[in-house]
Structure formats: C-alpha cells, structure tokens
C-alpha cells in the first residue's frame, strides 16, 4: 500500500498545476478589442488563480468571522461567496440553510431578514399525471413571472400553460385562473392587457394537449387529433439581408430542424403566443407568432419614438425548423441568411396585436469589420481556452429602455448592446469568462452603470451548489459599464454565488432575479432553484454581500426532484418566488443591520418608468426606478451614511430630528421648523458637493430630497 502522505503531496502538486493552467480572464485572445477607448489589458482579466473550493471553517475562523460581523458599522458584515473580493471568509462558514429536513410541503425552512407572508401550493391538474413521474420531468414545471393589471396580477408561466394569481392583497394571494396550453417553457411578459408566452418544446397552435398525428415521435399512438388549427395571423419572417463572410459551421449543429427527421407539422407552435388578458378569468389567444428557432425566452423592447408598437426580442438556442415547416427558415449555419446567430425581433402593433409579426433577425454576434456572422467565442469553463464553437444564440436578453441598452446573456458570451435602432441593436462590447459555463441572464443596476450576468452551470437541473463545487461557478459576475457612447465597455468587478452548501438532491445554480429598489444601493433578489431565494447588495461590484435569504430543504432527501425557485422578483413592496414544483411564495423583507426599515419603506415608494403600462413589471424589460421627495427616502440615505460612518452621527441625528419636527409641527411652528431643516439640508448638500464617491452622492441626493419635500410643505 502506498503511503497516504505521499499521495497528499501528489495531489497538492496536482492542484497547483491546475491553478497555473487556469486563467480567469474575460475576452478570448482572438477577440477584437472593444470599439473606441479599450481599457488597459490588465483591467479585463481577473487575476489567474486556483479554482477555490473552500473547506469548512475551523472554530477559530468562525469566531473571527463572527467578531467581524458584530462590528455594527462594519460594511463588510454581509456574507458572500466569490472569487474576488467576495466579502466572505476564505473558508466555508456553517449556515442555517444546511441540513434542512426534506419534504414537498413540509420541508424545513431557514430564513434571514425576510419572511414568508403567503404561500400557495401547486394547483390541481398542474402535476405530472404519469404514475411513474420522472423526478426530472419539466412537463408541468412552473417557470417565470410577470406582473400587471395595475398591481392585481402575478402571472406565472408553466411548461403546461399559464397560472394567474390575484395579488390585490399580496398576503392573501389566491389562484385565479389556469390556462392550459402546453409548449414550454412558458416564459411570460405583460404589457397592459396583453400577455406574451414563449413556446419552445412541442406546442400546438390551438393550445391543444393532445399530440398531433403529424408529430414525428411515437408517443402519439392512438391519440385523437383535434380539428386542424387555423394558421396564425402572424406573417412569415422575411429572411434578413446579410452580407456575411463564410464561416465554419459549428460542430453538432445539424441542419435537420427542431424535430430531427420529423415531417413538417402544420399544427405546431414554435415561437411567441400573445393573449388578451383583459378578463383574467378568461384569457384569449390573439396571436401565435411563429419563429424559426422557437422561443426559449423573450423580452419586451421599446422604441422611444414609436408609441404605437412594442417589440419582442426572441432568444433561444433550440433547433431551427425546416423551410418545409416554416417558409424562410434557414437551418444551415453557414448560409448568409441563416436563422441562427441572432435574435428574432417581433413587432407588436398595440392596437392590432393579431397583426404581430417577425420583422427582423439581428445578427448581434457579427464582426463589424468583416461581417462574419458568428464572430464570437466563449471560453471553456475551468481552462479558459476559447470554445470550439462560435456563440450562436442568446439564452436571454434584458432590455433597459430608459438607457436604450440591452444586456445579452448569450450562452458563451455576455454582451452589451445599444437599442436605439430597435430592429438592429448594436453591439458595444462582449465578454467571456473562464468561470462561466453558460451565460444565462442579465440585470442592469438602476443607474445603468453595472451589468450583472448569471451563469446557469449545469442547466438548472443539476445540483451545482455542493461543497465540492467551485464558489465562482454557477453564480453571478458583475461588470461595471465604463466609457461613454459607443465606447461603453464592460469591466469585471466580482463574483457572487449563494454561500450555503446544498445537497446532491437539490438542483441549484444562479437563476432569475430583479432589482430591489432601495435608493442609494444596488440590491437584487435572485432565485437559486432549490438553493432558495437570496437578496444581495452589489453596490460595490468587487465586494458583493448577501443580506437576506429564504431556503427550504430538498423536495426529496434521496432523489433529485426538480424544484426550487425559477425566479424571485420584487414587485410593489413584496418579493415573489415562482417555485417550480411547490407553487408561488410571497415574502417581505424585514429590517436588519444590513437593511433598515427606512430603506425597506423607501423601496415601497419607488415608482417605475420606461417599460410597460403603469404598474406592469417584466424583469427582462427593466423599468427605471424613481423615488418621490419624501422624508422616508431621505432617512434611508441617512441610514446608509450612518452604516458606513460617512457622516458624524450627531449630524444624522440632527437631520432626523429636524424632519420629525417638521412632521409634528403645528401650523404656527411649521415655518420655523422647515427653515431649520432647510439649513441643515443645505449644509449636507455643500459637503456632498465638495466630496467625491458614493457617499457624497448619497449626501447630495438626500439633501435635494429634503429640500424638495420642504418646499412642498412650505
């Protein structure tokens, strides 16, 4: 037998060799430099290093970390897990989320700084009726969420249809309507009385549940075929003119189309459905816009100069159907008019949504100089070497109409694009990262100075948050947006992944999230499937910290049953979690050292502009948050200045007292109280103007908020 100690040495050496071979950097060497003022090379890459897999903390390390966390004003108190400046400890801290009891509806729960206020179980009929259900079946999985109907509706997508929840009183959230319309994955958006739904699996135009007799598979034996569906009103996509240079077809990209050798199926739906939801108890399909590559996800985009139409960017990497099934589809990736290597753009006339049609196919990966359509390559996770295949599609894109920007999470790459020309968005920069397996989703901060990308390593159905997994794989990478105009580019800031270890029977990886509109900070809520919901602060992109969480034990202790949160979004004061297998959960944030009651209240006062009708929320068409001139908002800023010790406490106390005096003043004393408050605010504005940085900006906005409110009260 070999001496185990010698073995140990062998493996330490092995780990070091791997470290040398592992270079974490963003752009592949062959990638062209970003347009305009490219940043210095050393700024693009994360430092080369070992793939960190932290070991459990020793009692001494735990004590030291707890002591640091108990420093009340210490900004580093939050927990994080990341490769660079992750804010966490170098070892793994024990976590209340670990060791929770398994169960579908009776699982153990752990929560920090957020509480569950309503929970609905998965509705009857939306389970897999198969007596031997595959634990990993997605046929009835809940998917994404959108919100609308003036705050009354949470719309939950499902691979089998749509689920409408009445959230007029969020704490009494109730099931309202089930729309049965299989197709998967049922990504949803809302604009006024219209709802949009992605179809990528096998769906029928008429939402029928029975397989078509023309469908190539063998499961259709004996299935009665419903009457032939009317072809959709939507027009055929015109193949875009593309002056592309020849390129190598990616390996494995067969030209057969979405269903292999199956014959054309005229009843098949593969694209984006549009429903009229004016009556949420009886939604009606108004259009079924067929695309060549189906729709894995879609995102609303607007043109500020066009109020009559909205646009839908369609993303996905599924197979391209044959021209026999849909005219104009070009499966050959080497063809100059290929249906691959881009996003489809649907135009939706708001007055005549039934006339919605694909109007453009934007080749967003094209090289601006050579015209080569597939010019981008990702990096292979771990080694960082350029991927064998060019990036050929986005998983999801997030538009930010307020800034005319688009964040593209495009399987191998992260993209920043300008959407002033809605039909042909222009790529400003692109990044790749050796820690990322699959660029899945993108989220801007409110000021459009940061872009957060999430990595869906393992595809969402695999348990990627176990103790053996690298801490920066399957999480988020935050990039700062630097430069101006067409010279805007992305600069890596830091990683963040759920810090709690999960079991082998919990699918877990970063997934969909949204901003929590606390003024003065960049805070996001995010789903990690069965890893639960997390809320973190990425104001400092190199030092990202978790500030709240909620988690349940696995659905099953022995077997991986697909479940957990698909998305966790903030909407009008509440967090909504779409649970794949268990239903819908509603949360409220609770105050803590990381987030004050004033900050929570200020977030509730935020209003949105830039995407959607009043009170619609689609996380992938981001609205810009604005806060009213309210003392609550001013107090939230003061709490932040106090937390970071950026202003003497006596001045913060004086400002808070002066605001309180104004609020409680009688008619006769009000004028004097306002004058005194104005004076304090003017001093704050002056100090803010004289300094630089985040806290100086907070001082200025706090001062102007107070002054505006004071003027209103005068």
């Amino acid at each position, binding site marked *: 037998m070999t001496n185990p100690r010698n073995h140990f040495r062998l493996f330490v050496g092995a780990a070091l060799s791997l470290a040398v071979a592992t270079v974490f950097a963003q752009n592949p060497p062959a990638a062209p430099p970003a347009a305009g003022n490219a940043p210095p090379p050393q700024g693009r890459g994360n430092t080369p290093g070992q793939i960190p897999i932290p070991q459990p903390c020793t009692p001494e390390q735990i004590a030291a970390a707890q002591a640091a966390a108990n420093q009340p004003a210490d900004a580093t108190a939050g927990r994080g897990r990341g490769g660079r400046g992750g804010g966490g400890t170098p070892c793994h801290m024990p976590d209340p989320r670990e060791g929770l009891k398994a169960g579908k509806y009776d699982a153990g729960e752990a929560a920090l700084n957020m509480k569950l206020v309503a929970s609905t179980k998965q509705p009857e009929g939306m389970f897999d009726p198969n007596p031997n259900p595959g634990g990993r079946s997605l046929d009835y999985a809940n998917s994404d969420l959108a919100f609308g109907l003036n705050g009354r509706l949470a719309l939950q997508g499902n691979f089998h249809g749509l689920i409408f929840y009445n959230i007029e009183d969020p704490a009494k959230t109730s099931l309202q309507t089930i729309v049965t319309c299989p197709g998967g994955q049922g990504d949803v958006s809302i604009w006024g009385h219209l709802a949009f739904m992605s179809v990528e699996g096998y769906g029928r135009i008429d939402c029928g549940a029975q397989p078509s007799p023309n469908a190539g598979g063998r499961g259709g034996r004996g299935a009665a075929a419903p009457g032939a569906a009317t072809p959709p009103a939507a027009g055929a996509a015109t193949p875009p003119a593309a002056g592309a240079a020849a390129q190598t077809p990616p390996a494995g990209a067969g030209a057969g189309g979405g269903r*292999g050798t199956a014959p054309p199926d005229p009843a098949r739906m593969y694209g984006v459905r549009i429903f009229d939801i004016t009556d949420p*108890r009886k939604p009606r*399909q*108004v259009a079924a816009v067929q695309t060549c590559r189906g729709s894995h996800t879609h995102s609303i985009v607007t043109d500020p100069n066009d109020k009559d139409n909205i646009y839908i960017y369609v993303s996905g990497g599924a197979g391209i159907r044959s021209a026999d099934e849909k005219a104009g589809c070009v499966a050959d990736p080497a063809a100059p008019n290929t249906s691959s290597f881009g996003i489809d753009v649907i135009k939706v006339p708001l007055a005549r949504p039934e006339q919605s049609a694909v109007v453009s196919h934007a080749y967003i990966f094209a090289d601006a100089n050579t015209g080569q359509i597939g010019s981008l390559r990702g990096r292979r996770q771990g080694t960082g070497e350029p991927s064998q295949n060019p990036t050929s599609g986005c998983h999801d894109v997030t538009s930010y109409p307020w800034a005319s920007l688009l964040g593209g999470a495009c399987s191998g790459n992260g993209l920043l694009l300008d959407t002033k020309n809605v039909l042909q968005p222009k790529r400003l920069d692109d990044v790749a990262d050796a820690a990322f397996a699959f660029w899945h989703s993108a989220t801007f901060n409110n000021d459009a100075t940061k872009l957060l990308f999430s990595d869906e390593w*393992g595809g969402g159905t695999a348990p990627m948050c*176990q103790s053996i997994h690298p801490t920066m794989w399957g999480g988020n990478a935050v990039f700062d947006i630097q430069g101006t105009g067409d010279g805007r580019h992305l600069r890596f800031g830091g990683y963040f992944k759920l810090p709690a270890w999960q079991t*082998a029977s919990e699918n877990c990886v970063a997934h969909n999230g949204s901003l929590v509109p606390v003024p003065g900070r960049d805070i996001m809520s995010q789903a990690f499937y069965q890893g639960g919901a997390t809320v973190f602060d990425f104001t400092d992109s190199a030092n990202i910290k978790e500030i709240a969480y909620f988690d349940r034990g696995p659905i099953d202790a022995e077997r991986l049953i697909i479940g957990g949160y698909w998305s966790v979004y903030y909407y009008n004061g509440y967090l909504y979690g779409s649970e794949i297998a268990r239903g819908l959960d509603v949360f409220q944030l609770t105050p803590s050292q990381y987030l004050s009651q004033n900050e929570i209240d200020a977030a509730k006062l935020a209003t949105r502009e830039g995407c959607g009708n009043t009170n619609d929320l689609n996380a992938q068409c981001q609205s810009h948050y604005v806060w009213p001139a309210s003392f609550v908002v001013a107090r939230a800023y003061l709490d932040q200045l106090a937390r970071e010790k950026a202003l003497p406490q006596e001045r913060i106390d004086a400002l808070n007292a002066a605001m309180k005096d104004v609020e409680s003043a009688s008619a006769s004393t009000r004028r004097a109280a306002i004058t005194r408050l104005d004076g304090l605010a003017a001093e704050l504005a002056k100090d803010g103007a004289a300094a630089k940085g985040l806290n100086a900006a907070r001082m200025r906005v706090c001062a102007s908020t107070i002054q505006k409110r004071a003027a209103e009260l005068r």
Partner: protein
Amino acid sequence: MLRLLPILNVSRITNRLSIAGLSLAAAVGLSACHRGGDNTAGHPASASSAQAPAIVQPGAPGQASTVVSSVPAFHDNNFIDADVKFMQGMIHHHNQALLMVAMIPTHTDTVQLADMGRKIQLSQSGEIQAMKEWLTGRKQELPMIMPDGSAMMHGDMGPMPGMLTPGQMKALDAARGATFDELFLTGMIQHHKGALKMVADLRAAGGAKETNIGDFTNEVDNDQRMEIVRMYGLLGRPVEK
C-alpha cells in the same frame, strides 16, 4: 388555492358536524364578506378572488376560449428513435462508471479520489434513474445490465463510446494505490469523453429536442465536462481535448 382550501375544509368538517369546524366556516364567511365590504368599488378582482379558480382552454388565435372542468394531461411525444437508443446506451455507459467507482474504497486511500468518486456515484446513479424513468414513461424497453457490466437488448449491446475494454477493467481492478488512481482517472476521463461524444452524436442526428431529453443531455454534457477538468487537475496534467 388559498380560496379553495377553506371551501374544502368547510365541507369536510361540516360532514363531521364539528363545532370547531362550523365556527371556522363562519369565520371564513365573515372575513370574505368583510373583505368585500372593505374595498372600494371598481375593484372587480376582489369579488372574483372569492370564486373558485377558472380552468381555461384557449383556442387558436382569434378563437374564443372555453372553460373546462379539469386540466387535460399532455405527454411530450417529440422524440425520435435516436433519443431512445441514446438513453438505452447511456444507461449501459453510466453503469460502467458505477462499477469503477465501487472499486475505490478497497483499491485506494486517496481522499480526493474518494470525494470525486462520491460525486460521480451520485450524479451517475441519479441520471440512470432519470433515464429509466424517461424510457418507462414512454413505454420503451430498458436495457438489462449483467453483473459483469455487459448489457442486453434483444441480444448483446455493443460497447458505447469511451467505455473501458474488459482488459482495461481487469487492469483497473488489479491495481492498488497510486497505480489505481492513475488508471481510474485516465479511464474515467476516457469514459466521460465518450459520453460527451454520445451527446454530440445525438444532437447531430437531430435528437435531444424533446424537452426532457434535451434538458438531460445538457446536464450530462455540462456535468461531465466539469468532472473532466477536475480529473485532469487531480492527475496534475493540463486538460486535453
């Protein structure tokens, strides 16, 4: 659902003539009335929230929707022969990985190899279960696995890409310590690369389009790629394609 539950409870409890149940029923009724009265006019949703959920079957675009009594079931039938053969073959393929991992406790003391083995054991056995469920759910034949790792499907199944030859398996079983570690890691890398080839071949043949198998193959692809990188790390060698 929250609206449904009290109704169900009421009928069940009323049948039992429980006093507590009746008072619960009364409380539910009262709170519903109170809620309705509390809200200002012009909010029809508050009235509808008390109703049972509607199940709606839409029609083709432009056609009316109909209210139905239950959610019709759907089975994804969008798979082809290549998908079935892939699943049958991959069960055979994964089974060999389990045989290899089973040797670890008796053949080596290396802690890192045991950790890696546990990870492979968990993912491959879970995936075998998922593949069996996929096949049975679609009324397809399951391969019969023999104790020696060979598989039967109306006769012998040939080896799958990357599978170790009987000679390689014998050599692995005969090795101990560092030799075993070396053979295990190189063998498992060869084995995993075969799985990646199987996924690529399936995709090239137009398979992996059905929702569940598409998802499954992505998972196999991502997971085994990661494990290959880690195994090269344990060998102390750069990753080779």
